[in-house]
């Protein structure tokens, strides 16, 4: 269970004095991104919006995956955030989630979040490498460790060239993707984050099961996915509000009706709840505190719920328009529905968090 006495404030106990004020305050600062990353996130929002307008997402729906903007993301440094200095990284996982929330908000049709999730998994397993920030990488949880030549269905795998797999005991393996093997399996839910069937190629590295098991190894990955989902939810809530501000019925803007207000207020609360859990889990992963896996389960669960709720509410408010191809609504609905169950649905993860809480 998330160790509630291990609060970010005053985490120091009498036996483990923190060296100075900064020692304690470091934890504090971690709940909001560092100043330069707050600015970077604002830049990312603009840049993602211009690189990936809805028309770019629709182009992927129409023409299939397209990696042409990947190098731009790498060049701008987005893929290096949250990686250690030793691997060319900058910032922390707290800073990373600020960027991934923006990626979620823009429905970025490239495996940016997925690659970050895979990189965090490799780092947790001690398998960091020099190309973490450049290689598009997929992540799959498998019942047993795959071997070279095995075929796997991989979330957001259409454009990946490496693959990280995790087994229930927390063992991690890194594979190359066999040449030309990535093949779209299912693009019915979200064509811009399609599931792909991939053949595991060369075995590049492996790590034995570690203490803490899969929940510990996947903590960083779950935080990444959760941040992306918060972004999808935030996009949807904002769009729902904008609609409620202009759509008139019965001679008034529908946003003035209390029924609508309360629906949107509840969605806002759910999103902030998720955002807080993501921030707390990111801080815990960054500091390596004992509650990192518990908080990451809760963060991912909360983010999945909030994203689904926000997309549902937007769909409801849009009325029939929300069910048309023309409305951008379904792009976010598809993104949320595709992403929410990855690494465990909300219900699965709440059960896991509760079970962990009972054994610790």
């Amino acid at each position: 269970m998330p160790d509630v006495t291990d609060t970010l404030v005053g985490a120091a106990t009498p036996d483990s004095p923190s060296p100075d004020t900064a020692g304690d305050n470091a934890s504090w600062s971690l709940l909001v991104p560092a100043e330069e990353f707050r600015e970077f996130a604002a830049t990312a929002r603009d840049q993602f919006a211009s690189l990936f307008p809805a028309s770019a997402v629709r182009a992927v729906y129409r023409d299939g995956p397209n990696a042409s903007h990947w190098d731009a993301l790498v060049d701008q440094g987005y893929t290096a955030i949250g990686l250690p200095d030793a691997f060319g990284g900058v910032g922390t996982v707290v800073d990373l989630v600020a960027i991934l929330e923006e990626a979620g908000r823009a429905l970025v049709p490239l495996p940016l979040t997925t690659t970050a999730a895979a990189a965090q998994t490799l780092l947790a397993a001690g398998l960091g490498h020099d190309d973490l920030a450049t290689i598009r990488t997929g992540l799959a949880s498998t019942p047993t460790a795959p071997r070279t030549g095995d075929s796997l269905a991989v979330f957001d795998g259409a454009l990946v060239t490496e693959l990280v797999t995790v087994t229930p005991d927390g063992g991690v393996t890194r594979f190359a993707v066999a040449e030309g093997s990535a093949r779209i399996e299912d693009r019915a839910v979200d064509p811009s984050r399609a599931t792909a069937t991939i053949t595991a190629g060369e075995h590049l590295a492996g790590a034995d099961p570690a203490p803490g098991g899969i929940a510990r190894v996947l903590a960083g990955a779950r935080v990444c996915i959760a941040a992306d989902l918060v972004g999808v939810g935030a996009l949807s809530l904002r769009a729902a509000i904008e609609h409620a501000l202009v759509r008139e019925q019965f001679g008034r803007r529908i946003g003035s009706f209390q029924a609508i207000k309360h629906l949107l207020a509840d969605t806002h609360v759910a999103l902030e709840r998720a955002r807080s859990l993501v921030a707390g889990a990111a801080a815990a992963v960054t500091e390596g505190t004992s509650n990192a896996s518990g908080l990451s389960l809760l963060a991912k669960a909360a983010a999945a719920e909030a994203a689904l709720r926000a997309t549902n509410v937007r769909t409801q408010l849009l009325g029939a328009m929300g069910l048309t191809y023309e409305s951008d609504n379904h792009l976010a609905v598809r993104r949320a529905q595709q992403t929410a169950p990855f690494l465990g649905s909300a219900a699965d993860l709440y059960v896991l968090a509760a079970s962990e809480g009972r054994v610790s």
Partner: protein
Amino acid sequence: MSTDHLAEYRAFLERVLPAGYDGSAREFRNDEKLRTDFQAASFDDGWLVPEWPRELGGRDLELADALAIRIEGALRRVPRQMNIQATGVVAPAIRALGTPEQKERYLRPTLRGEAWWALGMSEPEAGSDLAGLRTSAVRRGDEFVVNGQKIWTTQAESSRWCTLYVRTDPEKPKHRGITCLLVDMDSPGIDVRRIETAGDAVEAFCEVFFDDVVVPVENVLGEIDGGWIVAMSALEHERDMIWINNWLELQRALAPVLGDDDLAPHQLERLGRLLGDMEGIRLTGLRSVANRTHGLPDALPAILKVFGSEAVQRGAAFALEVGSGDGLARSAPFDEVLESFAATIYGGTSEVQRNIIAERVLGLPKEG
């Protein structure tokens, strides 16, 4: 530095709390002398309002350090104050808006727990719509003469003082003609009647009738006709304490459930969701503080009331359900449920909170 404060506070607790102190045990929770003495000792050592300046009884601590002290106290389940609104609501308002004479006269006895306060806000026709209040105060020389009725006034029968919100100008728009008076409850013309509550777990509240009650003009808090500002600022001061308490109540409700090995899968899911609420409240509260510390805009306080109070209700309901697994409801978890009902009503109902979130945070238009 933070660690020093914390170590010092822990040493203080060690010194003043009785041996074997367990704040969740009923005999300690209901020990009124312990609660009274602890508050006075906390004030005397500067721990009651550690972020306040030293000359007013604080320790000049930074917001973050003061909060760490509060959280430590909450985790240790220190004795609850007997008259919480005095330190949580009244004292900060007097500090912020009171005259030098008012501060000199009221702050120390209020913080030490010697002067109890009632909050004279709700009226039979003015609940959520506080600005609709009708209790009137008419100026007569250096005095106001008060007539009217308050209701749901917590601890009115045992309080010596009351921050009484009255209408001083019926001609002005309703938010603008309200004044806050510091009223001596021993004044002639005040009649306090206790309202029997649905159970002992519900805090006692009263009806209060005012019949030509004379209040000196020097007892106006803030400006005449400026009572709305006093009310708004008074409620704002409590914000960090409210989420810390909600977090702690949820922790307390879930503690017995976490030790239960026989939970069904559907109960595990709800338990996990409640853990998410519990950690979500803590982290939202801390994010809010982090925002303020970094000088960032902070809209999180608007959600903490509805989020925290409703989560506490869900937690209490869940603990009662799990505790009644043999088909027999038990009184202790039922009391928690009963007590939790108040949280979504006082200090602005959940429905009003949702309107506030929608209008002030999300930018939706007012009704109509």
